[in-house]
């Protein structure tokens, strides 16, 4: 790795700087990949050894029944050859190898789902195996819930800052609301809303709003309270109204806090939507993951997980980009 770094740093070209920035990230990714491939050997050892035994190989560690009681780590150590040979190619591995996940991801986004038999080109629409289709559903509910939740969070924070009764009463309830495990609450919200005829988008949006309002309340209360005594005194010398103080002083000072809390909120909104999709098999990445676990399709679960991670990265990046634009428009020192 050190030799690679030197070789990369040696040529004094314009690209060298960017490479130097990417290199640490790349090294971490490679290290994680290595750990992942190694972990797949014991994780998938049982299946690999059974398959090798059926094919006629001599397996140490006793009969199949005896092996069931022994540690997978020990079995892999006793039979390194067959364990490694069968670790990364199984159809339903306990831990799929990275290349299997990537292959599934490619197939269910572009490979099969655009150019394949049931793909976009042939059928004119995404199939229900398309991760793009499921990601679209999840993204819609996430954005809906995120917008509702953040708006609610900002409103509550404004209320808390301006009203002493709200200051004392809202925050404890907001904190209590977050101590209820969302996996317990989400099915209830889905069932209750479905029983009054509201399904699909709304229950998921409500769950993700429920998770995303909290970081915004906490962040924005702090943000609205950043103006110091001198700033507020200055406003008082001009006999400014509370509304003027709010819009001209509190709101602009809270902008950095707003974006910090929005980044947390959008990630929470995504989690909320996925949890909300678990009990209802009507599309979305959550539904896709649960379907994968019903049928033992671990590769499918991991591909959906990868999609969810990419979606989260995209959302957080988008908020970061918006933040940079807003701060630049506000004349912040570059």
């Amino acid at each position, binding site marked *: 790795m050190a030799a690679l770094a030197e070789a990369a740093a040696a040529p004094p070209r314009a690209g060298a700087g960017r490479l130097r920035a990417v290199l640490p990230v790349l090294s971490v990714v490679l290290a994680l990949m290595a750990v992942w491939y190694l972990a797949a050997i014991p994780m998938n050892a049982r299946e690999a050894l059974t398959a090798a035994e059926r094919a006629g190989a001599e397996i140490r560690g006793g009969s199949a029944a005896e092996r069931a009681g022994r540690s997978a780590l020990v079995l892999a150590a006793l039979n390194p050859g067959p364990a490694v040979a069968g670790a990364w190619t199984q159809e339903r591995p306990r831990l799929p190898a990275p290349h299997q996940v990537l292959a599934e991801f490619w197939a269910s986004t572009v490979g099969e789902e655009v150019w394949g038999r049931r793909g976009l080109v042939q059928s004119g629409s995404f199939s229900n195996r398309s991760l793009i289709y499921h990601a679209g559903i999840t993204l819609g509910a996430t954005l809906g819930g995120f917008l509702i939740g953040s708006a609610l969070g900002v409103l509550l924070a404004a209320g808390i800052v301006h009203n002493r009764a709200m200051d004392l009463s809202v925050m404890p309830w907001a904190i209590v609301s977050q101590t209820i495990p969302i996996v317990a609450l989400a099915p209830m919200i889905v069932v209750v809303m479905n029983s009054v005829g509201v399904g699909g988008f709304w229950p998921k949006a409500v769950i993700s709003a429920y998770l995303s309002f909290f970081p915004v309340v906490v962040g924005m209360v702090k943000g609205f309270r950043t103006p110091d005594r*001198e700033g507020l*005194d*200055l406003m008082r*010398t*001009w006999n400014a109204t509370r509304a003027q103080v709010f819009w*001209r*002083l509190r709101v*602009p000072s809270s902008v950095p806090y707003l974006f910090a809390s929005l980044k947390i909120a959008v990630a929470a909104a995504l989690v909320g939507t996925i949890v909300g999709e678990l009990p209802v098999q009507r599309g979305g990445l959550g539904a896709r993951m649960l379907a994968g676990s019903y049928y033992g399709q671990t590769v499918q679960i991991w591909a959906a997980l990868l999609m969810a991670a990419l979606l989260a990265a995209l959302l957080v990046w988008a908020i970061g980009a918006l933040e940079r634009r807003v701060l630049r428009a*506000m004349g912040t020192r570059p």
Partner: protein
Amino acid sequence: MADHAARMPRAAAPVIAAEGLDLVYRTADGPVHALRDVTLTVNRGEFVSFIGPSGCGKTTFLRCVAALETPTGGRLSVNGMSPDEARRARAYGYVFQAAGLYPWRTIEGNVRLPLEIMGYPRAEARERVARVLDLVELGGFARKYPWQLSGGMQQRASIARALAFDADILLMDEPFGALDEIVRDRLNEELLRLWDRTGKTTLFVTHSIPEAVYLSTRIVVMSPRPGRITDVIESPLPRERPLEIRESPDFLAVAHRVREGLRAGHGDL
């Protein structure tokens, strides 16, 4: 002559009249006397400096005038009204030690802020901003953001902001306290010119003896625990004051008396 006669009584009426002013803070360690029995009148067009060690109540007195603090005893009137009525009537501009410019507004935007709050029409606001920025010699920096300006320039912008809405009283709380000596000298000179041109009644808190003597028509020496006035010195210096005046015997005599007053205040402890 009629004009003159009409102006005379107004000029004679005190702008600020404090009589037996007391301010006691209740703290966990017992009451703290921030001001005790402060009696002072300030007439129109005066430049009065308040000097004393920290805790002597000079800032507190200024904050009482601005209705940012409420005295617990005595009488205080500003422009013939209660301080709070005067605040509502936007009778004064206040300059804090920190320039306190909003980083998200340009210099122009910062100076326009009080005008926006007071509901000035757009065109008039623009005209006033341009005028006061010229007055503090920041005409060329209207579109800059505060971080692009030096500390001295930021403080000048904050003075422009206090002047923008034509209050006839200027309250300044150690406005140059955080600046270095060289910048401070220049700003003192500019402030004196500004005061001469605008004729605003100015109350100026400082802990620098030369600054107080150089700027003021009257110097109020205060001492702490309890905060009170120990001496009031009329300056014999002429209105026209080049920086070199600070080496004149008159100047040194006043500075000496201020120093004596400060020492006497400490002697009481």
